[in-house]
């Protein structure tokens, strides 16, 4: 009897806690929103300008456009980390000025059904536009968006899978507005830059790690470009200066095998296109191999910052990632389409565009990112673009706005633009 009472009491308490948690979260999600309308644009301008004191300042002298309120769903490929914090901070920072409410959810990079359910939930919650960072189940998601009258666009994702196997169903669908890649669709320039660094620093035995080619064909192409660059150097170098590059090892979405280092005892440098911070560096630490220099992609802002260049154990020597402000590409396309406007120079075929990547190859590069980027600090005032500037990029709020200008804007978000 006492047990029964205890259970019922606990159940009531837990249910109350759940309801309270849910209500609190509800309050947070809608907190601070201003009503839509013409006067609201001026309010939001002021609000955002108050928040900004650095990079993200109103360069337009105050946006006077009448904005329309929209609810945008953002599906991110992961639920934590600096990248996620930065995207959320940026969206929150610009939300008043662009008059958009952002709702976030977490997608899967390998399960179509999860993604479809998450997108359906966003649509059901009233989102008029969706921004997705994962290309998994895209065909059915685009169909779902079309039937619900919701527009979809990509961010931090090259949509390689859809582009190569289902172009008509995705890029050919009027409800899919395009995507901006995670930096460059072609990683060859970064791979060649790393090759130049390795040649300049005199490393001799290089390992290469990639994800499977069926999943990331661009990494295979990048590894080949890297090898070609080294081979070109070897063709003219003295025998003593020759560089040996091991055959690329494919990581099946699992950490690098410990035996890799015993198989390559002379290795002095490792180039991992496959998420080195998560898949490779911990294995190096576990095997006491942090004397090997690591060039990789992605940025965690933890060990990779502490041990980059001349800092810490100096293991990390290079990395590449892209900045959250690139979300303005899908956002502007969505806002315009929801407002019934399109750019006068909008291409007829839906595009996949690139944004300038953050290529970090020196202490100076890292310092710039740590001190001045929203990615590292989650500080909206350090963003490349303010909310008002985003408004000015939308054709529906600025008749002079062009698609070319939008694409050009996201191509100036690299490390050099921070300095």
């Amino acid at each position, binding site marked *: 009897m006492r047990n*029964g009472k205890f259970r019922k009491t606990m*159940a009531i308490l*837990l249910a109350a806690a759940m309801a309270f*948690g849910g209500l609190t979260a509800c309050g947070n*999600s809608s907190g601070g929103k201003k009503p839509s309308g013409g006067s609201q644009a001026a309010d939001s301008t002021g609000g955002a300008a108050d928040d900004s004191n650095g990079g993200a300042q109103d360069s337009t002298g105050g946006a006077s456009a009448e904005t329309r309120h929209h609810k945008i769903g953002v599906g991110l490929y992961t639920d934590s980390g600096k990248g996620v914090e930065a995207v959320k901070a940026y969206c929150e920072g610009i939300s008043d000025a662009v008059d958009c409410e952002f709702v976030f959810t977490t997608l899967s990079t390998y399960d179509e059904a999860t993604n479809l359910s998450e997108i359906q939930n966003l649509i059901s*919650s009233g989102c008029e536009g969706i921004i997705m960072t994962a290309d998994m189940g895209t065909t059915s998601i685009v169909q779902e968006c079309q039937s619900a009258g919701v527009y979809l666009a990509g961010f931090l994702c090259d949509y390689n899978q859809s582009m190569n196997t289902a172009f008509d169903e995705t890029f050919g669908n009027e409800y899919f507005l395009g995507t901006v890649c995670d930096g460059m669709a072609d990683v060859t320039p970064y791979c060649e830059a790393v090759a130049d660094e390795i040649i300049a620093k005199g490393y001799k035995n290089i390992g290469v790690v990639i994800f499977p080619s069926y999943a990331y064909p661009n990494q295979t192409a990048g590894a080949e470009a890297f090898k070609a660059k080294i081979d070109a150097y070897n063709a003219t170098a003295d025998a003593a200066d020759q560089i040996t590059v091991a055959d690329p090892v494919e990581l099946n979405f699992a950490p690098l095998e410990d035996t890799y280092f015993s198989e390559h005892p002379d290795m002095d440098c490792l180039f991992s296109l496959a998420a080195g911070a998560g898949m490779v560096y911990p294995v190096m630490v576990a095997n006491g191999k942090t004397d090997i220099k690591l060039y990789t992609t992605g940025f965690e802002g933890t060990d990779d910052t502490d041990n980059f260049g001349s800092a810490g154990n100096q293991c990390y020597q290079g990395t590449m990632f892209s900045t959250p402000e690139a979300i303005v590409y899908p956002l502007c396309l969505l806002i315009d389409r929801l407002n019934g406007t399109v750019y006068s120079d909008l291409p007829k075929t839906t595009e996949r565009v690139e944004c300038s990547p953050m290529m970090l190859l020196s202490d100076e590069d890292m310092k710039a990112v740590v001190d001045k980027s929203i990615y590292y600090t989650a500080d909206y005032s350090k963003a490349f673009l303010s909310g008002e500037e985003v408004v000015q990029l939308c054709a529906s709020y600025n008749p002079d706005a062009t698609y070319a200008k939008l694409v050009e804007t996201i191509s100036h978000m690299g490390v050099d633009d921070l300095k």
Partner: protein
Amino acid sequence: MKKLIQNDRLRAHSGSLLSYGGLALCLIVFSILSKGRLFSAYNVGILIQAACVYAILAMGAIFIYSMGYMDISVGAQVGVYCILCILITNATGSLLLGFATILALALICGLINGYVSVMLGLPSIVTSIFLNSIFGGVQMLLMEWVDTNSVGIQYDMSFLKSITAMVTAIAVIAVIAVCLYNYTQLGKYTRAIGANEKAAQLSGVSVTKWKVLAYIFFGICIAVAALFLTARTGSAGKGTGTGYAMDIMVALLLGGMPLSGGMRSRISSSLIGSFTYVILSNGLTLSGVDTSHVYVIKALVFLAVILITCRKREGVLPR
């Protein structure tokens, strides 16, 4: 006297009534928090879509859980069946052939799961671990073979994607499952095995036979679920099916299923649990809950539902 009978009836059915508590709680709380969006036509449609695969799998899995066993290979099996169904259908243009193939495979796996474990004297979970590894490897090999991250079906499966088709499928499987579970020896003996396998065996019950039959029915459900999952997403890849084993277990627990099976097992747990599980995820998004709070709230709800649906006086969890 009459009152006593009514009280006895009420007591006898209190477990069944309480098992609806979790679902009712979710419906009430989320309908308020979502400002009525939970019951919008669109949302009801997507709830059915999302719950369809879980419900079909759970209705098959209940026969296994009733015996006090569990099958962790279900996710990997679903993944491989989806890929195979797509590849065979794309190659032959016949969805029927694709489905027939995965159905045959599912039956063979059910046979292996049930029979081999008895023959070798292994716990069923061991054979399911073995099958899980095999299917996980096959899934990876298939994706490497097709040299892509995700393979799409070229057959129009929109008729299976419709809400009508999914509701019909759930209803048909539910009717079959209820009949088998409540009105045939299969249901009676699987529960008896879960209550006390040794006693069932000494009473003349052929444990091997009923175990194999239970796994075969589960296999059929897996094949049907894979077909509807393929219809829903139109594609499959290396991660398709991941997490289903755990999801099904959680769904059944949410529905009030005792983990150790036995005579208190009820077929309704599968449907109640599947819908509760789906409504939970859907409701949290509709309520505007931040993604960082979702896991904590899900855990709280899970615990609350378990406490509400708990039927044993001497313990908290339904064991």
